[in-house]
Structures are given as C-alpha cells and as structure tokens.
C-alpha cells in the first residue's frame, strides 16, 4: 500500500529540513521516494497546515523492570485515581505515575512517541525488563544494561584485569541481557552500600574492593568506545540529590578524559550550596561544561510539580532520601551481587524551596546548553514526573511568557535563586525535533529511525500547530508506526507491536572460562540459564529483535 502525506510542514533535522512544506510517501513500513512510475497512491492524508515530525523517541524512561513493578505495587492509591477501561481494541489498565505496561504504550503513542528506552536493566533482572517491554504495545523499545556495582566487574578491577578482558565481559553481558547500551548508576556505590558505606564520592574507594567510581567510569567508558557501541556510557553520577554535587558532576566530566559519556537526569546532579538554605543552582556551570566538552551529552530529568514515585537502581541515595518519602513508605533492595534498587514516592511541591529550585535548575540547563543535539528531553520518568507531562514541559521550553508566568508562582526564595527570568531563549520546532527525535536516534545509535528521508522506517507524528504548545503536543492528529496509522486525534486506533533494539558487540568467548566458575560458586543460577535467548523475546508472536550496527561498521 502506498500512502501519501501531502503538504505538511516538515521538521526533519536529520535531513537538515527545518519547516519545509513537503510530501512524504510510505510503502511497506518505510518512507520511500516519490514514485516516478505512476503507481497510484492508495491512501492520501491532507496535511496542509500541519506540522510533521518523525515519531518521538524517549531515550531515558523507566518503563520496564523490577523496580517499576515495585513502584506499581507500592502505590495502589495512585492507580485508583486513574483507571483506564478496556475498549474494543485496547486493554484495560491503570495510569498516573507508574502506569501499567499497556497503558504506558498507548499513552506514549497517543503523545506521538514511537520508541522508549529503559535505562536501568539489571542483567539479572533483564528478563523481566524485556517481558514488561514485551507487554508495552505500539512503541519500539530497548534497554541500557547496568554495570558498575556488580561484583564480577569490581573483582576484575581489583585484580587489575586488562581492558580487553573488561571489554569481553561488558560485551558478553550486553549480549546476554540484550541491551543497546551500557548504564552505570552511582558507579560502585550500590555495591558500597552493601558494605555499609552510605556515600561514595568520585575518588572515594569502595571499602572492600579499593576501587573508585572514577576508575569504574573510565574503564566502562573505554569499554563502550572500544567495543564500538554507539550509545556513550550512560552515567547516573555519584551523589544524586546532594547539595554541592555540581562539583562531583564537573569532576566526572573532566575525569572521563574526553571519552564519550552521557550524563543522565543531570538536573539531579547540578546543585550548589550557596544561599540561606545552602542549596543553589549549578546549572550555569554544568551547561558551560557541556558546551565546552563535545564528548558529553546529557538528558535533563526535569521535575514537574505533583505526586510521583522515584524508582532507581541507586539504593544508596534512595535510602538516604527516604526521609522525603511522600507518602511515607519506601522500598530498598540489594540484588544478586549485581545491583540494587530503591523506590521512594515523592510529591514535588511548588511552594517547597528545594523542589521549586529543582524545577528552575532543570529549565536553566535546557536553556543554557547551546547544542540541542547534545541535550535530551526527559523527566527521568517517573522520577522527576510521569512522561505524560512532556507536552507541558515542551510548552515551558517553547513559550517564555508561559514559563515566566509559572516561575512567578513558585516559592519566592527559589525565584530569587534562579536566573530563569533573565533567559530569553525559546526552543523552536526544529530544536524540539532534534532533542526528541533526530538527536535521540543518533545518540542511541538507531539506524533508520528518527528521520523522514527515504529509507527510514515510517514512524511519523503529525500535529496541528497551536500557539498553546502543550495542547499541540498532547494530541497529535496522526501517528504512524512502521507505516501503519496507530493514533488518530490523540486516540489509539490500531494496536501494533514494536521491535526491541539491541547491539551485539563481539567478544572473546574465553571470558566464559572465568564466568562459569564464578556463576557456579557464587551466583544462584547457571551461566547457561542466565543468558537470554532470542526466542524469549519473539516466542509470543509479537516481539522481535533489531540489531544495530556498531561504530565503524557499515
């Protein structure tokens, strides 16, 4: 079937197209060149006056895995306020902060998103992450596999294993757990918490292993680069939420010695200690460091006011932050000599000084980082806010007067501590398209996604331009996923199943000679039973795997 999207105003930064009226043709799930052989168009959509972008990509959102299910179980009261009935074509479920998987897929699609990436896949919990993502309809998905607090890696570092051996282990784990990138969360800190260390600075040693977070970050960043994994090491830094952590973050940037590194939810890592409350914005310094270090990318992890739940692998910091739990209940877990997790409900309040300033710091970072290809729109769903608040966030970025109106309502001392009012910048459609599409596809390493030129998969979102950007981005006119119309007027009209994006870096199989006895002696599962097989993803008849090329490969 040949589909023609006629006359829309196209924003396709991957092709350098910034608001040009263009026709787009779709055939067999892909975008194709305008037919020259006279074959008839089977279905035409008149998009004159409408804004056309590729499907949005959330490069950091907690949509699958054990901690998310703990968060769901912990908060039945949050679901009760947002029941989602079944329809002829969609399943029932529940929403708000940590929605059920079906609802998450529908709501992402209804917002124009066509791919989501779970950033904290514990290798030992990867099956669950894939099973939950396998029950998340319409959108594509993928995960970053967590390393850095696993005892095997730390033992290797203590034993001064060479980089090649580390690379083999990283690649082996990525293949076994089926991810597209490598994540590190509070490098070594989750492990140190098990030895009763309650904080771990960048150059502080794990009391058992004598290894520092800086070493772990350098080693893993090098492994990612040498293995040719496109997505840079995805780093949740040390000292999350701690006033003064801006210095840690700046040190982290310097410490990685020019290697590619992605700093995630950087808002939570951009705090100074100035002012009467000893809490201040480090956004300007962070933005300057990002602007000056081309090897660095970041997503913001914007907070927005209201009830949510924080779910993180960083149980060291989550345990420390449990005193802010609202409602007052929380879960921490140590997990399988692999990692951990902490789940703490939060209610961010605009009349709370710290929360109000966190809000402003996130926006400052968005607006002060100059290159939209290196900064990404996230709320670290659900940690800063549920993903359903993205249209509101886009309005804050695109509409200075709206932003200033909101600023005027927050805690007055926080208003004094932010430069936000003096920042004139408003994001353009092109910049939003970079941040949420072209840039995201590039940083994750997705081939043939996030762009609208011929050859790409036809993941396309169509909006009606509206001066109220929140309204505009809340309800697309059309969303096409792999060429099929899945959403019309902000409602799911067809349920499809996206693919799971992975990379498969090569490794020396001899790494299993070290791993097998380690599994037999210390872990609770046989090595062979640990590795996830392809059919586990595809045997339900809906899932599929798409392997992406490594750097340097064709």
């Amino acid at each position, binding site marked *: 079937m040949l589909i023609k999207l006629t006359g829309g105003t196209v924003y396709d930064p991957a092709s350098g197209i910034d608001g040009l009226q263009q026709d787009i043709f779709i055939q067999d799930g892909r975008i194709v060149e305008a037919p020259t052989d006279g074959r008839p168009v089977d279905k035409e959509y008149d998009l004159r006056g409408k804004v056309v972008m590729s499907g949005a990509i959330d490069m950091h959102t907690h949509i699958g895995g*054990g901690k*998310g*299910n703990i968060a*769901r*179980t*912990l*908060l*039945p009261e949050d*679901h*009760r306020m947002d*029941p*989602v*009935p*079944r329809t002829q074509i969609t*399943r*029932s*479920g*529940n929403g708000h902060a*940590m929605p*059920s*998987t*079906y609802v998450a897929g529908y709501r992402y699609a209804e917002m124009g998103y066509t791919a989501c990436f779970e950033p904290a896949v514990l290798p*030992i*919990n990867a*099956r*669950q992450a894939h*099973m*939950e993502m396998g*029950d998340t309809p319409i959108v594509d998905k993928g995960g970053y596999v967590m390393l850095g607090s696993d*005892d095997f890696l730390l033992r290797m570092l203590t034993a001064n294993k060479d980089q090649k051996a580390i690379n083999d282990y990283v690649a082996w784990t990525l293949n076994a757990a089926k991810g597209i990138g490598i994540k590190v969360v509070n490098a070594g800190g989750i492990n140190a918490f*098990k*030895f*009763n260390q309650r904080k771990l600075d960048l150059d502080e040693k794990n009391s*058992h292993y004598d290894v520092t977070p800086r070493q772990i970050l350098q080693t893993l960043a090098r492994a990612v680069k040498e293995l040719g994994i496109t997505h840079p090491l995805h780093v949740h830094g040390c000292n999350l939420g701690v006033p003064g952590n801006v210095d840690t973050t700046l040190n982290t940037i310097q410490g990685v010695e020019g290697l590619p590194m992605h700093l995630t939810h950087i808002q939570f890592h951009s705090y100074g200690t100035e002012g009467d409350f000893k809490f201040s914005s480090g956004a300007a310094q962070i933005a300057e460091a990002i602007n000056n270090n081309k090897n660095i990318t970041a997503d913001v992890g914007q907070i927005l006011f209201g009830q949510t739940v924080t779910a993180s692998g960083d149980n060291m910091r989550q*345990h420390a932050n449990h005193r802010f*739990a609202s409602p*007052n*209940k*929380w*879960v*921490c*877990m*140590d*997990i*399988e*000599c692999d990692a951990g997790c902490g*789940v703490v409900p939060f209610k961010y309040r605009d009349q709370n000084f710290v929360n109000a300033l966190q809000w402003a710091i996130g926006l400052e970072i968005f607006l002060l980082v100059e290159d939209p290809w290196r900064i990404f729109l996230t709320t670290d769903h659900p940690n800063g806010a549920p993903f359903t608040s993205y249209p509101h966030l886009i309005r804050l970025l695109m509409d200075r007067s709206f932003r200033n109106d909101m600023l005027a309502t927050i805690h007055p001392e926080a208003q004094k501590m932010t430069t936000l009012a003096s920042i004139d910048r408003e994001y353009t459609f092109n910049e939003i398209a970079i941040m949420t599409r072209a840039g995201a596809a590039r940083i994750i390493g997705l081939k043939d996604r996030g762009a609208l030129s011929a050859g790409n998969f036809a993941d396309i979102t169509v909006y009606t331009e509206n001066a109220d950007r929140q309204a505009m981005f809340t309800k697309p006119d059309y969303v096409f996923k792999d060429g099929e119309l899945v959403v019309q007027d902000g409602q799911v009209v067809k349920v499809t199943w996206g693919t799971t994006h992975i990379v498969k870096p090569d490794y020396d199989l001899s790494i299993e000679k070290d791993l097998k006895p380690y599994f037999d*002696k*210390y*872990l*609770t*599962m*046989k090595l*062979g*039973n640990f590795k*996830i097989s392809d*059919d*586990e993803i595809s*045997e*339900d008849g809906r899932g599929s795997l798409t392997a992406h090329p490594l750097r340097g490969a064709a």
Partner: protein
Amino acid sequence: MTEITEVPSPFCGIGTDDLAIHIDGVSLKVTANGCAVNSPAFEQPITDTAPQINGQAVSLAAAVDKAAELLRNTQQPLIGGCATDVNGMRALLALADKSGAVVDNINFTAARRNLLAMQDSGWMNTTLAELKNRCDVLLVIGCDPEGFAPRFFERYLWNNDAMFLDNTGNREVIFLGKAPSGNASTSPTGKAASVFPCSDADLPDVVAVLSALIRKQPLHAQSVGGIAVSDLQAIADKLKAAQYGVVCWGAAALAYDHAELTVQAICNIVKDINLQGSRCSGFPLGGREGDQTANQVCGWTTGYPARVNFAKGYPEYDPFLFDSLAMLTNGEADALVWVQAFNINSKPPKTDLPTIVIGRSGMSFDKEPDVFIPVGTPGIDHPGHAYRLDNVVAIRLKKLRDSGLPSTAEVLHAIEQAL
C-alpha cells in the same frame, strides 16, 4: 532415553537450576539434586491428555467452545488458582479483562500479609545471591525454611565459597518462634542453630519486644512468650553487630489475624537497624508454583498484585473484597475458572457454579467439573518463565519432553478468542 542437566525448577521457589533429569518417553526421573518438593513434582506422571466435558472425553476445540459458552453471559466470573508461568498469566489476564472476571492467586491471602505491610510502610529486602555471599547472621522468625524448600540451607547458607565470608560454616542461624523441622540449618561443621521457640500466638508480642530492644526502648518485662528478654536482647545485639544480617519470615506461616502487623514490625526492625548504622535486610520466604509470577505479571498488566476485579471494565484492587473463596461463599460469583498448571493436589474449591478447570494432567476430582482441560506443566512440557521467591529473578524454564499437552497460555488464549 536422554538426560537433561541444569534443569530449573518452578516448584520450590528458590530457583534450583542444577537438577539432572532422565527422560524416557514422557516419564521423568530426577537423577541429581532432587528434593522432597522437586522430585515428585517433576516425576508426576501424565494421566489425562484429552479434555473433558462433564467427565467425557472431547476434542480441545469442543472443550474450549464449552468453556467460552459457560463464560459468555456471566456477570462475575472468578479465575482462581492462577498458578502458571508468565505466558499463562498473560493469557489469564487477557481472558479476565475480556470477561470482567476476578483474578485471585491461590496464595494471595498469605501474600496479603506482606503486601499490606509493604503498601503501608515499605521494606528493605534482599535476594538469594546476597544471602549466599554476605549473610553472617540469619534470624528466622516464625517459619521453617527447610520445610518450605528442602535445599534452602544447602544452596544458600552452606555453600563452600562465599565472596565476603571466610567460612560459611561460621554463619549464625537463629530461630525465633518455630523450631526447625530438621537438621538442614546445622552447618556442615556441626554448628547448630540457636532456637528460641514460642507459640504463633505469642509471636506478635515477641516481635514487638525485639523491636523495642532494637529501638532501645526501656522494658519492664523479663520474658515474653516464654522467651527471656535477655535472649531477645542478645539477638538484637547480634543483628546490629552483623556485617550483613538477614531477617527471614514466611507470611504463610503467620496464620493468625492481622499478621500483617507482625510483618510490618519485622520490616521496621530491619529499617531501624539500617538507620542506626548497620546493614540488615529482610527476606520474605514464600512464593512457589507461580505465586510470584502471578503477582508480577498482574502487577505490570494492571498496576496491582494478583487479586483484582475487571468487572467494571478496568482493574480494581481490593485485597479483601475480591477474595474468591469469600465471593463463592457469599454467592457473589456466577462461574469459576481454576488454573493450576503445577500441582495436581491443588483442586478447585467446592461449588455448584459452572466450573472450568485448566489443570495439570493427573488432577482428579470428587465431582467432575463442567470442563476440564489438562495442560502441560511449564518447565516440563513447554518452555516458559517463572519468578523465584525473591521476586527479582525470572528463571527460564525448559521443555523436557514432547507430551502434546497444550500450555495454559494456548488454552486460555483460545477461550478468550472464542468468547
């Protein structure tokens, strides 16, 4: 005759995956690393393979049609048991969504004791590999780990090597409440567990006193439930002094009213120790034969653990109102679907309502259900996934033989499609 090794078990809950099993046609024999739970569960012979309507053999298609017919005009069907693998639960929830059913896991009333505590104040828990490598003091409150999973101590306490313990035989094991049913808790070097027995009825008081001692509250009592307060003080001191203490309890064993308050007190003891500067973790012992699988899959599909009602067109959670046994007793249901792919002795509750059983081959009935569809067992007749008791690890179950029995997922999906 073939032998398959490194076979994972969905039966014992502790993720045993070192079994060796001889396969001769459809007969299985556990030849290595079996136990009183796993060996009979694997070796259970196949009996019925044909579906039945009122005890008469019929085709699978006919049984599916009949099941759909029985469910078609119901107002409040119940789906009980819910003992199957991940794909089975997925299909079960799809059927429940379409038919407006209550979904109620067989052991939810026991799990509720944990869930109520967790949903009220949370917890700090750990998993088996941490226990295996770190735990130097294990306090077992009111339960019997070896009765639950015979190889619990062998695999996770008396392992030869642990990364962070010089000698696993030096671990300290303390029982509070129930005494152990056997000697598995005695270390290979002969170090026996300390046992401080009390009746279940006294456990709330005993745990409350332990909690007070952890919090350094003054106490006038000299003993509680027959246990000297000084002994409890010694336990409190050992937990605080431990490198990595673990407190284990079993919700199913706390079979008294408002046992969730005991669970909550135990969880708060763990939290308090962590707040006072030592590491300590909880370890809930429970969840075999698909219990955790049911709660996990229901959790991500609905947002709630496995006692939900889809009657309104969306899932509602109520850990008391949607108790399927109570609903049957109170006449609040009009059909029963019983799903039990693991255990032939776990039979549907007695009822006069139309009853559909999706059960492991070998199940027999006092009164034949309207429809019985024998299914294969996950991890024997078809591959699948099952959660371990620690809830983090999903194990990959293997197919061991060709029995021709359909999976729970296939049958429930077919019924859903026929509705």
